[in-house]
């Protein structure tokens, strides 16, 4: 059944492996996936560990509902201490790896140590092998998966791997499966690279018993109908996430030329409608009817004819607005290259945009860049820069260090232009007109990021009763709520609520597009409780799932505090407060964040979580959530 999957402890230094059942008590306290990973990291990773040292613990997991009839239960979660931020590292991806991991008999992998030479793990029907991977070292993400499927003589094998960026310890290297599924953020690929772990391949034919199959089948149909009946899903089914770029750019919520403008004018060529010219069809992750990405062929230039997937809205930002480019081909090529080298597209776009602004200001010159002119909108320079980062050549070697280390090398005059929180770059969005979204990136447990707690539905200015229905439950919140996205009041609640609903889906292994991310009518705590019950037989009330999410989010907080984070790190770059936006619709123009109001939001946010004014969980909160000091790692 869904509860008999194992946890595997793998030591790459000694080559020893052991598997254990997952105690039911852990399910009741952490569910699985990201929630249980957070507990395991906090427990097993020694304090102040070197993120690129053998002592760092790499966790790879499938959520509790992965591979079951829960819709879009496709997600793999990856966690470790981050080499980018020195704090919590956490990444999440779709595709087909996680269900295959479960059919192979596993839910969680706890990987320590460092192999002497490159290796990969092969997991199949309960067995674990550590195999040599010297022949794979140097291969990109696409080739690595090809070569492994050939070596294992099984095209059904699912593979998670790193590309050259992970091998080269680019601090924002990602973990990939398939052509485009990226465990993108916080540099989990560099952790694999440092462990000499090139890939994890898995294949399984072990049944996951569904507790109440007929009812689960019917309920899943109901959930799918609920999801695909919303307007936003239907747009996504047709255009992919690219439509988000179009609507946010029109409003003036897109970071352009690093942080100088909040809109890219004349962006028609990179809008989602134009993808139709190169798309050969849409693509779904496991069990998903939203199929939000394109399969495409690069139409021109040196990469013409290459098959790739995407691009997501983040790549339209990274290779479009942020660097001032307006060429669809550049977006397509850039997206393909970061996926094949295995790098976070958000971080790459942001680092390039920052370097370009430094070049414009004369802080970087051609002497620093190895002769590369970093001019806004220079398509060739952008593609060249992607390669130099992946292979750490001249300026690329500096940028590959990530925001704070790169700024240290370039000099303090570069710092004011850096758009980061906790040492991780923000995506291409501009949150100056939207206080709720700004609070989210400031407090997210993995640094500037929208997938930790963005209340995206705040952008719709929904009728208040709709917001009340979502944000009052399941704990009976009675504080304020406001439905204008330019306001500050009630927004901390929206961020806290979203953080916990995302923690819940990440622990279940379900995609965020199947919860309240872009629609208030998508499944949430109540539906999760029913899905868990019908698929696994475990009974949780919706408030219990809320409490579990709160416990796990607080553990992530404790990990960050232990590694040295303070209240000062829950803060935005000065430009958010000091430079008003210049473009966009009237509602987005001339806006910046008010420091005092933002401080008040932060206080309120801490209070909602049961953390003190410094963001430290109070003893009462720890007692209520049953969180104890972690025992020394076994």
């Amino acid at each position, binding site marked *: 059944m869904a509860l008999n999957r194992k946890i595997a402890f793998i030591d790459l230094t000694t080559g020893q492996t052991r598997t254990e059942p997952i105690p039911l008590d852990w399910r009741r306290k952490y569910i699985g996936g990201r929630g249980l990973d957070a507990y395991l990291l906090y427990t097993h990773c020694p304090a102040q560990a070197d993120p690129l040292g053998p002592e760092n613990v790499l966790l790879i997991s499938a959520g509790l509902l992965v*591979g*079951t*009839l829960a819709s879009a239960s496709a997600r793999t979660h990856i966690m470790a201490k981050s080499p980018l931020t020195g704090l919590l590292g956490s990444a999440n991806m779709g595709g*087909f790896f996680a*269900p295959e991991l479960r*059919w192979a008999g596993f839910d969680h992998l706890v990987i320590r140590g460092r192999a002497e030479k490159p290796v990969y793990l092969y997991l199949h029907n309960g067995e674990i092998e550590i195999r040599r991977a010297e022949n794979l070292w140097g291969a990109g993400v*696409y080739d690595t*998966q*090809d070569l492994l499927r050939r070596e294992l003589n099984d*095209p059904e094998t699912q593979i998670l791997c790193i590309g050259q960026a992970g091998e080269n310890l680019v601090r924002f290297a990602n973990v990939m499966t*398939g*052509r485009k599924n990226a465990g993108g953020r916080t540099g989990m690929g560099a952790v694999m690279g440092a462990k000499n772990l090139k890939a994890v391949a898995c294949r399984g*034919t*072990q*049944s*996951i*018993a*569904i507790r109440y*199959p007929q009812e*689960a*089948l019917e309920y*899943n*149909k109901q959930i*799918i109908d609920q999801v*695909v009946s919303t307007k936003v899903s239907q747009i996504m*089914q047709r255009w992919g996430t690219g439509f988000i770029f179009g609507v946010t750019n029109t409003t003036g919520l897109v970071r352009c030329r690093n942080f100088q403008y909040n809109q890219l004018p004349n962006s028609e060529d990179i809008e989602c409608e134009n993808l139709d010219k190169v798309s*050969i*069809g*849409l*693509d*779904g*992750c*496991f*069990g*998903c*009817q939203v*199929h939000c990405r394109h*399969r495409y062929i690069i139409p021109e230039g040196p990469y013409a004819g290459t*098959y790739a*997937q995407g691009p997501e809205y983040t790549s339209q930002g990274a290779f479009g607005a942020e660097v001032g480019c307006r060429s669809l081909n550049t977006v397509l090529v850039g997206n393909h290259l970061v996926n094949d080298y295995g790098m976070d597209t958000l971080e790459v776009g942001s680092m390039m945009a920052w370097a370009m602004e430094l070049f414009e200001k004369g802080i970087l010159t051609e002497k620093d860049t190895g002769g590369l002119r970093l001019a806004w909108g220079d398509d060739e320079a952008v593609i060249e820069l992607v390669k130099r980062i992946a292979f750490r050549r001249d300026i690329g070697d500096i940028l590959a260090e990530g925001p704070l280390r790169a700024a240290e090398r370039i000099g303090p005059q570069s710092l004011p232009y850096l758009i980061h929180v906790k040492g991780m770059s923000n995506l291409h969005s501009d949150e100056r007109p939207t206080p709720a979204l700004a609070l989210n990136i400031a407090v997210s447990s993995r640094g500037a990021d929208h997938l930790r707690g963005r209340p995206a539905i705040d952008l719709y200015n929904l009728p208040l009763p709709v917001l009340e229905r979502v944000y009052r439950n399941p704990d009976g919140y009675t504080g304020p709520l406001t439905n204008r996205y330019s306001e500050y009041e009630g927004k901390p609640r929206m961020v806290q609520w979203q953080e916990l609903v995302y923690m819940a889906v990440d622990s279940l292994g379900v995609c965020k597009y199947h919860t309240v991310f872009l629609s208030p009518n998508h499944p949430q705590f109540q539906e999760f409780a029913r899905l868990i019950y019908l698929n696994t037989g475990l009974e949780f009330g919706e408030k219990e799932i809320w409490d579990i999410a709160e416990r796990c989010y607080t553990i992530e907080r404790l990990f960050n505090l232990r590694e040295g984070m303070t209240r000062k790190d829950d803060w935005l770059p000065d430009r958010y407060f000091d430079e008003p936006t210049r473009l966009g619709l009237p509602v987005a123009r001339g806006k910046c964040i008010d420091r005092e109001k933002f401080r008040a939001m932060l206080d309120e946010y801490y209070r909602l979580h049961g953390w003190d004014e410094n963001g430290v969980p109070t003893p009462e909160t720890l007692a209520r959530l049953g969180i104890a000091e972690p025992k020394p790692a076994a």
Partner: protein
Amino acid sequence: MGKKILITDPEKCTGCRLCEIVCSVKHDGVSNPALARIHVVKWDNEGFYLPMRCQQCREAPCLAVCPKGAISRNEALDCVQIDYERCIGCKLCVQACPFGAMGWDAERGRVFKCDLCQGDPQCVRFCDMKAVDYVEADRLGCVRMREAGEQYSALLRRFGRG
């Protein structure tokens, strides 16, 4: 109403494999593609996906090789079916099927194949794209013609008829 047949369309398939899981849950109460009667064959390097399943052949090799007469045609459903009372588990049918559509459940020691869910195929019900569809055979031609003609007709309507 004419008899229905199950058809697949790789142009529509997004490769999500939901059909596989609803199939194994419906028939065996478990999630396991190895027990599914339908399988999305993928060419991941080209992004080409093709759902494969039993073709319910008129001259079915599985039926022909069965030494015990355990495989027969259900004419009402236009379906090739297994009589487990007669089946001896010799697996000749597994080897004979040119499409790989006769499976072997090693745990339970028995063959399995698509039974069209007795006229309500769950793979079709769950496929939002209708990459797997269950349509009346005598209407199939005109359904396909309309789909194929859509692009041509759009051009005609846009640029005039001559």
